[in-house]
């Protein structure tokens, strides 16, 4: 994502995270590893949630999401990924709005 934007401008944010997204499903038979996926990806901007994604095993490994954000004023964009083991990964990026 860009570090700066003009008020009212729409910016594009792209995210990728390393995660195997084990589906718990294969067409292969009984020896299936238990499901372990990122089940939630949430984005907050200026302390308000702007996007939340309920993720199912149908999202590809090492999940990629791109989306738009409308810049209003300077503040943090907080990205949160939560997986089936309860691991929570939070990344914050500062957006300066001019």
């Amino acid at each position, binding site marked *: 994502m860009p570090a700066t934007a003009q008020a009212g401008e729409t910016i594009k944010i792209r*995210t990728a995270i390393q995660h195997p997204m084990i589906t718990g499903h294969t*067409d292969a038979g009984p020896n299936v590893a238990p499901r372990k996926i990122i089940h939630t990806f949430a984005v907050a901007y200026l302390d308000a949630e702007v*996007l939340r994604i309920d993720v199912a095993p*149908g999202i590809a490994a090492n999940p990629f*999401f791109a989306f738009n954000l409308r810049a209003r004023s300077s503040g943090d964009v907080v990205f949160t990924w939560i997986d089936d083991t309860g691991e929570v990964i939070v990344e914050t990026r500062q957006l300066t709005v001019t």
Partner: protein
Amino acid sequence: MPPMMRRRSVLFGIAASPAIPYPSLAQTSAPPSTLFTVALAELTKGREIKSGRIRLETSPLAESGSSVECKITVENALATPDQVQTIHLLSEQNPIPTIARFHIAPDTGDVVIETSIRLRTTQRVHAIAQMADGALYADKSESVVLLAACLDAG
């Protein structure tokens, strides 16, 4: 500076356009799974699905079902009562029909979401947008999958 992590517009009709009925699910290729039909029925609860406002694009020819490009575009005017609330991404042939649900905050403006999805086999994928006023709009896209997902690799 995108968040790279440790381990871990295309407009489609206009908001006030008259409703165009969503085309019937009858298609030339494999019929949708029962799982999909049930999931869709639970989602719509008998409401009419309209075309327009939402557009779904997936790779027409996917080299690997393990990762198929997918783009959802929703026309979404600001400060109107019919803003998009949730987008459901559904697969006709995957073992779990729901691929993802996208919850969109109000006053987001036009929505463009890109991701990569898994497809078990050649099939259609549907994106159904639920608006704040309860209206449903949908679009679908077909991908031919050369190498199926759901298989163990060497």
